[in-house]
């Protein structure tokens, strides 16, 4: 088990570094000079050159890369060009919102997806099953931003149950936090919940045909145990896979939702940082998202290993 986790842990490193190298190259190779942008139209060539030297942008690209690598290892990601303060201080302010948003969205998606999928599988080919499947197809077809606007219109503007936009941190109280996070999380999670509904339904129907389910029934175990323990343990695996993919997708998709709901999250920060050619901040943001994603994947591998002993022995 420890060896398995160790191996998984080593696999995290490329997961983090490949996107980082891509971002490093993409920013350096794209047109647009951050020094020029920061100093504005009135700047002289000398002023721009001086700033370029100060930021290290006049070094050859491989020197920049090595300096940047050194920065990561020493946890010094440099100063934001725009904010003029250390990236390591800026990121946590934004990352918390995005991580909370993703976690709540994932929890909602899993909750809705698993229960709807089970309901559907247990009532196969009955009207309730058809209703759930149709709703799921509809859910998958709707883009998040459209669903977000629909939710705002219905629950915030018409019913006035939730605020239209804005953010209260959890420190402001659970209810205040919940009120601002629920609609964004639902908007972000709804497509994923539709995917999980379909996955849960089909994997449960597959598993129910397995001989070991017949054995469990033939042993006289009640249906609640047969479904909840014997079938669910296997049927949950593909849903967990989807949940992992969904989490990655939602971390990225959070950008749109954060902008619509005016949440001060990492996604919105990244979009703005890219527009300002704020290299250190963009790299810091991508590093954070990769790290969160990698930790999440490790957690999912851990869940697999707990659920399926065969994985541990491979």
């Amino acid at each position, binding site marked *: 088990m420890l060896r398995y986790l160790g191996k998984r842990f080593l696999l995290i490193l490329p997961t983090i570094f490949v996107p980082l190298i891509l971002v490093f190259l993409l920013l350096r190779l794209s047109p647009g000079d951050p020094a020029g942008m920061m100093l504005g139209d009135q700047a002289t060539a000398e002023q721009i050159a001086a700033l370029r030297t100060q930021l290290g942008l006049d070094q050859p690209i491989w020197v920049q890369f090595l300096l940047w690598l050194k920065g990561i290892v020493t946890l010094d990601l440099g100063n934001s060009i725009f904010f003029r303060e250390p990236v390591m201080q800026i990121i946590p302010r934004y990352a918390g919102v995005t991580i909370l948003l993703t976690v709540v969205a994932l929890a909602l998606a899993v909750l809705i997806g698993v229960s709807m999928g089970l309901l559907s599988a247990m009532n196969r080919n009955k009207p309730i099953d058809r209703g759930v499947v149709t709703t799921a197809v509809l859910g998958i077809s709707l883009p998040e931003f459209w669903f977000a606007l629909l939710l705002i219109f219905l629950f915030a503007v018409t019913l006035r149950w939730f605020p239209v936009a804005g953010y209260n941190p959890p420190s402001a109280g659970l209810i205040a936090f919940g009120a601002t996070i629920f609609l964004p999380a639902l908007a972000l999670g709804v497509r994923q919940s539709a995917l999980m509904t379909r996955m849960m339904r089909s994997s449960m129907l597959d598993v129910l045909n397995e001989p070991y389910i*017949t054995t469990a029934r033939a042993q*006289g175990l009640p249906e609640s145990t047969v479904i909840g323990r014997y079938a669910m*343990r296997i049927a949950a695996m593909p849903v967990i896979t989807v949940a992992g993919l969904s989490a990655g997708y939602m971390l990225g998709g959070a950008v749109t939702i954060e902008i619509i709901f005016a949440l001060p999250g990492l996604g919105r920060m990244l979009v703005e940082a890219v527009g300002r050619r704020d290299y250190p901040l963009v790299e810091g943001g991508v590093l954070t998202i990769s790290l969160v994603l990698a930790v999440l994947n490790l957690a999912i591998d851990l869940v697999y290993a707990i659920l399926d002993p065969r994985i541990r022995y491979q």
Partner: protein
Amino acid sequence: MTAHVAPLAVDLVSPQPERRTVLAVENLGLSLRNADGLLPIVTDVSFSIREGEAVALVGESGCGKSITASAIMGIAPDNAVITGTITLNGKVISGLSPRDRRRLCGRHMGFIFQEPMTALHPTLSIGRQMTDTLKHNLGLSQAEATNRAAELLDRVGIPRARDILKGYVHELSGGMRQRVMIALAISCGPSLIIADEPTTALDVTIQAQVLDLLDDMRRELNLAMLFITHDLEVVGDFCERAVVMYAGDVVERGLSDDVVRAPAHPYARGLIDAVPAHDDGRTRLTPILGTVPPVGQWPEGCRFAPRCARADAQCQTRPALEQHGRTDVRCWHPLEENA
């Protein structure tokens, strides 16, 4: 492979006290409801099993053996429509609700499946599967259930039972898996065991051991045993009586010695002629021509008639299961006993 199994003939010769009937199946029919209506799978199956008795249910693949077993267990598909009467230990169970039927499973009936690799849960430990059953059916505590599970594994000849309880099905050999399956089936003290081709998926050498074990369990626990198989050697050596099925019908029924040695139904004869024998001089096997007609395409009269050399115009009407010589036969032109 038969030398190891004690001949059952001894049981038959010695005078026996009246043996209680454990399972009685009368006129069992099973149809599946689909979009086009009802599709008959099994029609008119009747037999009974007494305590301590093994009865074989014989036939080719697709003749309705396994679904008959699932109807007895109460685990037939949801769209199955079942007719006839099933009596277990003197109580009619065929009319009971699915919930009440489920309560009989484990406690009164145990099931042994063909392929233990897939019939045991892949990601729950052997111990967990056994204790779940013991705790639910017998109301044991976790500690009691674990002890009982270890005793059961010991009893079916599994060494290091405590370690095996912590293990998983993929860590065991085929023979060990089937032993675990047997331990699970007998764990809650059932009076009836239904074994659906319990040795088909095993190596030949292991088959003999598993058959021996089943036979021991039957004697020790005085179990009634329904043995679903297409292996006629097993039928002759291991089972007291035999029921031969063809296309959803019982075509011959009697003592297995009679059915195997001197069958009266041409289909039963065909099955025996298709098996290689050790002792006679035959060098070529005689196959039964053709295949079992698929469900829904059974002929009107005798369902075996299209494949039968003895068929004539009379076979266009359906024969009844009637006594002929020493066995009950569903045939207009039964073979004369050649004993």
